């Protein structure tokens, strides 16, 4: 008895929302037994996205866990004691609402990029004791604003202490810390310490610099919620809205040498220096 004519099924799969022209691959599978002719039309983009995702996941998952922990606000480094000059700016009436806050955050991120990313970059590329001491000395002379300098040392020391205890697979962290404390000349400034930890963990310098800007943004927006400038949901919305500007700051200021470190917001520097004159304050800086 002859087989009935095979029905042809065509399945179109459109998952990608990309605007570029889609290349369609058609594959006809001839089944010798069932005689079903099935055409698969798959989006080429989807195939490529899947391949890239699998590649990224396969690259050192252990590093991802450490990365997320390092950037998690729950890490007890005392970052939440600092407002980056926001509290002083509010009391000087430079920032009084959400629009002012957004501008403040953007100016702060640009200044962080121009002034501190070179230190993160150098420390990540060369996470050695010698470089740590050299960068610490230079940054101590660069952070002439006493309020900002003390905040940097306070956060950096905490981060070093926590990292030495948490990342026990990096014994050089603990030994570096012990040597520096013993010598008494190193202050443990935040940016180089962060860079060194990233470098020793195996993070690339692009990620460590991006992460530093992310942490600054996270902490200043958090300070804004505690200063009642914006609510928690508004803060989250603001953070996402500013993310693309933050990324452009990273791209503009990354991978520069420490000799080129500069400040781009002198008004912010002036106002942050006023923090100790505040009669009533919530934050350390």
């Amino acid at each position, binding site marked *: 008895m002859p087989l009935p004519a095979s029905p042809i099924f065509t399945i179109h799969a459109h998952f990608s929302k990309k605007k570029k022209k889609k290349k369609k691959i058609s594959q006809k599978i001839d089944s010798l037994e069932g005689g079903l002719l099935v055409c698969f039309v798959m989006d080429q983009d989807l195939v490529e996205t899947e391949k890239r995702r699998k590649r990224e996941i396969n690259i050192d998952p252990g590093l991802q866990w450490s990365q997320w922990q390092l950037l998690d606000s729950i890490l007890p480094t005392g970052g939440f004691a600092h407002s980056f000059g926001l509290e002083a700016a509010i009391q000087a009436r430079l920032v*009084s609402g959400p629009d002012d806050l957004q501008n403040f955050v953007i100016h702060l991120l640009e200044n962080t990029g121009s002034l501190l990313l070179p230190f993160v970059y150098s420390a990540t590329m060369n996470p050695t004791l010698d470089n740590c001491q050299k960068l610490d000395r230079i940054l101590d002379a660069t952070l002439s604003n006493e309020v900002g300098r003390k905040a940097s040392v306070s956060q950096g020391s905490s981060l070093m202490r926590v990292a030495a205890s948490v990342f026990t697979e990096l014994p050089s962290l603990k030994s570096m810390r012990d040597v520096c404390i013993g010598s008494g000349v190193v202050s443990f400034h935040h940016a180089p310490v962060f860079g060194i930890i990233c470098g020793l963990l195996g993070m690339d310098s692009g990620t460590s610099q991006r992460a530093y800007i992310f942490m600054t943004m996270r902490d200043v927006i958090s300070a804004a919620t505690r200063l009642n400038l914006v609510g928690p949901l508004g803060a989250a919305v603001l953070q996402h809205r500013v993310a693309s500007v933050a990324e452009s700051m990273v791209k503009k200021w990354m991978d520069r040498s420490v000799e080129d470190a*500069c400040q781009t917001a002198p008004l912010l520097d002036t106002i942050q220096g006023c923090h100790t004159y505040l009669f009533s304050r919530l934050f350390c800086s």
Partner: protein
Amino acid sequence: MLSGFTASPMAVALSPYSLGDSISVEFTIGDGCTAVLTTQSSTKVYKSLGSKCSEQVLEARIGSGALFVVIPDPVTCFSTARYSQKQVFRVVSDSSLVIVDWFTSGRHESGEKWDFELYRSSNCIFAEGNQPVFLDTVLLEQSSPVDIAERMHEYQVIAMVLIYGPKLKHVQDQVQENVKRLMSQQLQIPSTRLGCCAKTNSDNCLVRPAFIASCSAFGPKGMGVVVRVASTTTEAVYRFLHHQLAGMEPLLGVSPYS
């Protein structure tokens, strides 16, 4: 003990900068000597052509027990101007320094406010063995995503005063006390809630201080003090500088910015 005292006012930057001028000056202040560097009027930087930048480099070595005082008028960059300056001071353990470095938004009376292309000013103090004591570079570039004018709000003048060394302890202490007193009166928690403030512009809570100053110690054993100022007028900064540096008169024979 041999000691020398020379107060020699010198005028520099006699002509306005234009079209990529470059000036380089070197000073050596001998042990125990005093030198004062000033200007006849504000340094004007004309508009630039293309990407040419007017530059000034100053290097000074200050000897033991010597005092170097740099008290210029402000730099004024015209629309589209490009200006870069670098000042390096090499000191020993008992050198003293007073450096005033300031700039305005431009010809702000004519409406030119923060309209220049590039302003960069770098001030560095190195101790013996090339140890960095103070490293500061201010960079304002129009090409950045954030407008310069927006960054400055309505402030038209930015100034920095460095007071460093054992001869100037009394001046440092007085300045710190003065600035703290001045600013404590200006800074307060906004008295009304956010919503009310946004509605009326005439409310006191929205009036920003016309003059902001802060003072920080720097260097080994707090040997130096840096004062940073932002002001809506140039006159207010002249008055401030005259008042804060009045204590220098016994050392210089004249009061700066009088």
